[in-house]
């Protein structure tokens, strides 16, 4: 299975490193400067291109989309799909990860295949998914479930396999059956790792949502807003769409980290 350092590295991406030291305002300097530069460039016409839209325009477009409800419709459609896929993928991933972790024979048989499967970009499966499931929501949910499945399986399995040996010995001394050991020792010890997996699954399925909308084009969604903007040369729509995607991703991250801190207090860190 994937070595743990790799997943810690993955986590580092989604649980952002925080700057050390105080004076948090320093983080705002760069973005504000960039926006100011951008605004100047569009105002003074430094770059002559139909694509250079001013920040004000992006804000206006944003306000318009919020006002006429299009943004909420798109967001609702995307989020609904994402949460469905996330739910299915996580559930399946927990089962598969538990099997891989608890049953060494199964791990030997299925582990390498799963590892290889992980290496293939999920997007490569899109043509097959679209032939088997069509272009509608079912196909997208299938795709998102796969995206959520992978991190859950990897982290669940790793979490289970890294149960502290001491705990296992105690279980053995007390004569726990395999079932008891699994449910009362291994799984609780693996909860922080499992949570990491679920956390990553949420992020990944959001990232995959945009991709799915891009490649399985039909219906509504935030990704479709981006495509529309790209096709009609509406840079402001594209930029606003990107901002929305980034914000939603950041919000999910923040919520998940909050939960993680709560859980860490209860169950301890991995």
């Amino acid at each position, binding site marked *: 299975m994937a070595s743990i350092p790799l997943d810690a590295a993955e986590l580092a991406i989604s649980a952002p490193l925080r700057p050390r030291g105080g004076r948090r305002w320093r983080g705002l300097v760069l973005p504000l400067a960039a926006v100011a530069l951008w605004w100047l460039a569009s105002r003074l016409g430094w770059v002559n291109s139909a694509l250079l839209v001013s920040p004000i325009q992006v804000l206006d477009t944003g306000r318009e989309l919020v006002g006429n409800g299009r943004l909420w419709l798109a967001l609702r459609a995307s989020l609904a799909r994402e949460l469905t896929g996330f739910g299915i993928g996580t559930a399946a991933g927990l089962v598969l990860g538990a099997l891989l972790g608890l049953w060494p024979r199964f791990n030997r048989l299925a582990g390498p295949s799963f590892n290889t499967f992980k290496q293939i970009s999920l997007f490569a499966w899109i043509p097959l998914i679209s032939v088997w499931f069509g272009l509608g929501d079912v196909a997208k949910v299938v795709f998102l479930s796969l995206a959520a499945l992978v991190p859950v399986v990897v982290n669940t399995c790793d979490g289970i396999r890294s149960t502290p040996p001491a705990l296992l010995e105690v279980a053995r001394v007390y004569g726990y059956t395999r079932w008891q050991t699994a449910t009362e020792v291994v799984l609780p010890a693996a909860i922080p790792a499992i949570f990491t997996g679920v956390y990553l699954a949420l992020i990944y399925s959001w990232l995959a949502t945009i991709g799915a909308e891009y490649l399985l084009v*039909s219906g509504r969604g935030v990704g479709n807003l981006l495509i529309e903007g790209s096709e009609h040369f509406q840079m402001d729509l594209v930029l606003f769409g990107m901002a929305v995607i980034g914000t939603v991703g950041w919000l999910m991250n923040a919520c998940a980290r909050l939960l993680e801190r709560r859980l860490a207090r209860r169950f301890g860190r991995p």
Partner: protein
Amino acid sequence: MSKPLSPLRRATLSAAALALSIGPLYATAAPQVIRIGVASAGGGEPVTWGGSPGGVVRVNEWLEQEFKPSGIQIEWLFFKGAGPAVNEALSNKQIDFAYQGDLPQVVGRANGLKTKLLVVSGARNNLYVVTPPQSDIRGIKDLKDKRVSIFRGTNGHLVAINVLAANGLAERDLKAVNLDAGSAQAALVSNGVDAAFGGYEWFKVRDQGLAKVIYSTQGQDPAYTRQASLLVREDFEKEHPAEVQRVVDVFVRAADWSSDEKNRAELFRIWARSGTPVASWEAEFDKQSLAERNSPLVDDFIIARYKAVVRDAVQLKLIRREVPVDGWFDTRYLQASLKKLGLEKRWTAYDAKGQPKAGGPAIAAR
């Protein structure tokens, strides 16, 4: 079994048996919804498309009106991925009818999709090559080694290859990028591609001064045009022949209306509801009679074109084996419609070369 079945088991089994026995009966009952897939992203609100009498059916809601008394709903699905995407939908039975171009229909059939072609719904569509306004590409020969957008798998793909071949080039001699209509426009305007193969959607861009047309199949050998027709899934046709007939009737009625020169302005206005302006339609149909383009007849020209598409596709390895065209067209419905509506002599049948058959208007050959 050693034990007699418990009462519960018996009840379940008999219920299952009953359900299974009435299943087939139920299947031949009318469908609750008829789904039509259109191989175009379309546009407008509600989404529609132009260039085919089908667009008229959509905008005027003739199918909805026809099936309302029977309580059958109509669902229109538009596919940005055009013909290839429609094939995907057909392969998992998400649509019952499809409006598609000739090449994707052939590709679908070659790959085992069981369909029947019913009526032609947009013949002799043209193909154009466009470049950015400042480009120094003058003709097809200048396309060598250039980055060109081609929408693979659509009927334009094959015509593009034939056009290139007529100028001594092959698809390999270009850097061909697969882009759908919308993306191709974005790419060309931002100089991402040097040229693009496409259809009537480019007139709007040209009229905005953002592209120029350097090649057109208009006025050339009709072999360089592409056809589109309405097809139905074989299963659906077997189960609901009555509904299929009614759909065909509506399409023939629309074809009749769309072939009347008196309706030209109104027709273009209806098609303009999809987002492609009237001026583009006027350019596309320049010097052409509506009847020639909107005729539903499956005549020698159409059959010859489809056979040629199969031949070329095999040769170019777009499909792996020949597919028979005979027996694919099921013109019983078309014949019945023409008879019912008294339109047997309305349209000219064309011979294999696209010329009117000797003897003036005649009934569809097959």
